[in-house]
């Protein structure tokens, strides 16, 4: 019993779908659409009778061979493979929030920075501890600033100067000590974070440089 043209075509397309199934839905529909159009155009130009249709399908070749050809095509051409260097975005944000964030959104930015710091994959635990302590808004800075008050309140120095027969003693030196200590503490409060930030940055960068660049495979989901 001879098949009709439509039967021949739909049977061929079913075989094609079945054979292409391992390739995935996207590639299967792309192939099926292209070949379906081919068949329609061929029939329009050459004729719709079963004999002609059979020859058109014969020239197309077995669906299994088409599927095999499609599976032979590499999914990602060699020259299009991308190597992406490890990104240090996380570390940049952490250091920025920890150090400068306090000037923009005090405390909250620091909390965010601490969260990022603790989640960082490129720092050891003691490096993270350092990052938490020695930054503006961090505990050490706070402790230091508080103690400045204590220092200026309680430090006094008596100095006596011999002038002639008199001894003039003055209680002063608060300002000397105060100034000296103040400068030192301010130095720690402001330079410390810079040093810590730099330390964290170079540590992370050094570790990132040792990491393998990872492959980013191209996505073919969207047709051009």
């Amino acid at each position, binding site marked *: 019993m001879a098949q009709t043209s439509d039967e021949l075509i739909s049977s061929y397309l079913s075989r094609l779908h079945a054979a292409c199934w391992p390739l995935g839905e996207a*590639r299967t529909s792309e192939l099926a659409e*292209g*070949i379906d159009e*081919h068949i329609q155009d061929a029939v329009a130009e050459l004729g719709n009778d079963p004999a002609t249709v059979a020859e058109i399908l014969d020239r197309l070749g077995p669906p299994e*061979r*088409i599927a095999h050809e499609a599976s*032979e095509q590499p999914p990602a051409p060699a020259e299009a493979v991308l190597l992406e260097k490890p990104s240090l975005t996380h570390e940049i944000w952490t250091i920025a929030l920890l150090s400068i964030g306090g000037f923009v959104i005090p405390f909250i930015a620091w909390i965010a920075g601490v969260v990022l710091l603790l989640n960082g994959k490129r720092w050891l635990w003691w490096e993270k501890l350092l990052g938490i302590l020695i930054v503006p808004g961090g505990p050490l800075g706070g402790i230091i600033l508080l103690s400045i008050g204590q220092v200026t309140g309680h430090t006094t120095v008596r100095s006596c100067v011999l002038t002639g027969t008199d001894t003039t003693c003055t209680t002063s030196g608060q300002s000397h000590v105060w100034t000296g200590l103040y400068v030192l503490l301010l130095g720690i409060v402001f330079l410390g974070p810079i040093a810590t930030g730099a330390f964290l940055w170079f540590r992370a960068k050094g570790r990132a440089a040792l990491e393998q660049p990872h492959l980013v495979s191209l996505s073919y989901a969207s047709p051009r």
Partner: protein
Amino acid sequence: MEPGATRLSQLRRGVLEHCVLALLEEEPLYGFDLVRRLADVEGLVISEGTVYPLLSRMRREGHVTTTWAESENGPPRRYYALTPDGRTALQEFTREWITFRTSVDRLLLKENR
């Protein structure tokens, strides 16, 4: 299958892609038309359907793009066209092919003398 056919089929597969690019250089073509012109070249295409997986790969590579155009009778038709990258690939292949062909000819023809 004869051994000769196998050897040549490897070569065919390598050049087929660039033959497609060459045909598309003039103007965009729809699938059936493109395949028919390829089939005119003796021995280039064994099974016409295998051109379509090739076209898919060329599209993924960015050498070919598909557009739709109205046809006189029926639904819009898919046309395959060359991209600038495809044009460049064709030019490079043509240069290499000519050099290669000349060298191979020299070797083969010398043997047969």
